[in-house]
């Protein structure tokens, strides 16, 4: 679905990550791990087509990404940035409906498909009861649910999430992650997510991309990449490993 060839992440002329040749297929569920400031969000901006790469290429289904129109690209790849501005005055339902922008055909009415997707997204994130409320009147966690729902409504082939667990309570996190698992496993979509919770990664994800502070990276199946020595390199912190219910969990040490 998505290929990168010798891609580099640069900010202000400084190279944060280089030589990234990644191959993400439908059905895969990727976690992007790395310390703060290693260029994970900038990488997502490149992968989503918001920024054009200064070095390297990004291909969508084998086609150069920059040849896509903005709308058709948004139907292939959807990104939920970590932060967004907060001048939105509509209802929760309309907010979630913004995700349908790239699918819209008419000027006024939403199509039946749009309505179905919006309702489904509202239900999936338990915010149907809030649909008529002003988006600005929601709490932080409720807003985050609405944001996740809007990317679900956008319904791209590849979902890119930048720290989506923020502000979610545990039930919200578990619901969301099992839905993302299902998305990749059953709906044959792909997902890439910047997360910091290693234990969620070992439980829910299939692949990992580790971005190290020195600009190198490690990509592969979780079974190979998620090891104590890799995590210790990644976070410069010592870890213990615990096996619980057949899942490897990692506990940071002081």
């Amino acid at each position: 679905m998505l290929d990168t060839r010798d891609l580099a992440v640069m900010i202000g002329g400084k190279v944060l990550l280089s030589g990234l040749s990644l191959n993400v297929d439908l059905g895969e569920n990727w976690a992007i791990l790395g310390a703060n400031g290693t260029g994970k969000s900038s990488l997502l901006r490149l992968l989503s087509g918001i920024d054009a790469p200064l070095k390297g290429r990004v291909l969508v289904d084998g086609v150069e990404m920059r040849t896509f129109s903005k709308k058709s690209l948004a139907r292939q790849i959807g990104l939920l940035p970590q932060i967004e501005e907060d001048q939105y005055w509509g209802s929760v339902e309309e907010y979630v409906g913004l995700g349908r922008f790239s699918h819209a055909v008419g000027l006024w009415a939403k199509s039946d498909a749009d309505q179905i997707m919006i309702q489904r997204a509202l239900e999936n994130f338990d915010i149907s009861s809030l649909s008529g409320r002003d988006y600005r009147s929601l709490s932080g966690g409720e807003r985050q649910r609405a944001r996740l729902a809007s990317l679900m409504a956008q319904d791209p082939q590849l979902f890119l999430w930048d720290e989506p667990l923020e502000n979610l309570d545990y039930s919200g996190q578990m619901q969301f992650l099992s839905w993302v698992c299902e998305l990749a496993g059953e709906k044959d979509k792909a997902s890439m997510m910047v997360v910091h919770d290693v234990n969620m990664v070992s439980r829910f994800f299939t692949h990992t991309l580790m971005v190290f502070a020195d600009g190198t990276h490690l990509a592969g199946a979780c079974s190979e990449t998620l090891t104590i020595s890799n995590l210790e390199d990644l976070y410069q912190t010592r870890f213990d490993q615990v096996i619980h219910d057949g899942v490897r969990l990692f506990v940071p040490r002081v």
Partner: protein
Amino acid sequence: MLRIGQSSKLIWVACFSVCISIVCISFGSVSIPIATIIEGIRSGEGVYWTVISELRFPRVFVAFISGALLAMSGCLLQTLLRNPLADPYIFGISSGASLGVLGALVFAVPAFSVAFGFLGAGLVIVLVALIARRGANWNPYRLILTGVMVSAGLNALISLILVLSPPNMMKGMIFWMMGDLTHAQPRVWAGVLALLIIVVGIVFGRALDAMSLGSERALAIGVSVKRLEYAVYLLASSAAVAVVVEGGAIGFVGLVVPHMIRMTGVWSHRYLIPMSAFVGGAMVVVADTLARSVWAPLQLPVGVMTALIGVPILIYLLNKRSDVRH
């Protein structure tokens, strides 16, 4: 609050603002009853008809179009800059035009004052865009700061010229800078520009809604942000120029009208833009009518009246809407 749809609110407001403008035709130094207005329009002759067609109607038309352009310009800029304090003059367009007009007076070529005003405002539009766009991104903070700086610089020049100019010239200039429709001429292209902005607002309404979440999110949703930002910048600036060269810097309408409308629960740009046109238009018509009648035969600058009307309405609405966290 009663739940009325955005579209029915738009229709009500449109009817109300047109009615109020017609009523305003009857006010002035000579009061003309509504029945006589209708009679005059039907027969198309008589003294009243002359007053209406030669004086009142053009004046109300100019006021309405000016208000419509200012309110829509403010609305577009608040979205472009994601800043609730944005108004049509934030880039210094009025200062540029003022400097042009002042220049025309100083060089004793008053016939060219409109042309000079255009020139000054046009230079400001280009200058601000060039300075602000030097980087890869059309950054709202950069744009806003550039605009404020350019306008501060120009204002200093204007103050300097005013201080050095003879006192009899000063009063006319001050009137003009506060917004004054006494010498404004109705222009067809201003009306065409207003219609164009309404059409753009309706067609690109969804994209503009998405823009309120910031350019990054709008891009991710599939909006062609760069093209839209250029279009919004150009349309909003041209609207401000169109008003300023004819009627001076009528303040407050562009800042306040979009907020007033949002506070009544209309937020989607497909409704917000056309509704801004009607509310802004009606507000300036009423303000101008008051400005030329309350102190008659003395005419007050309309900009003073728009503020006097707008401030209480906005404060009332701010207090009424306690359910929204700002």
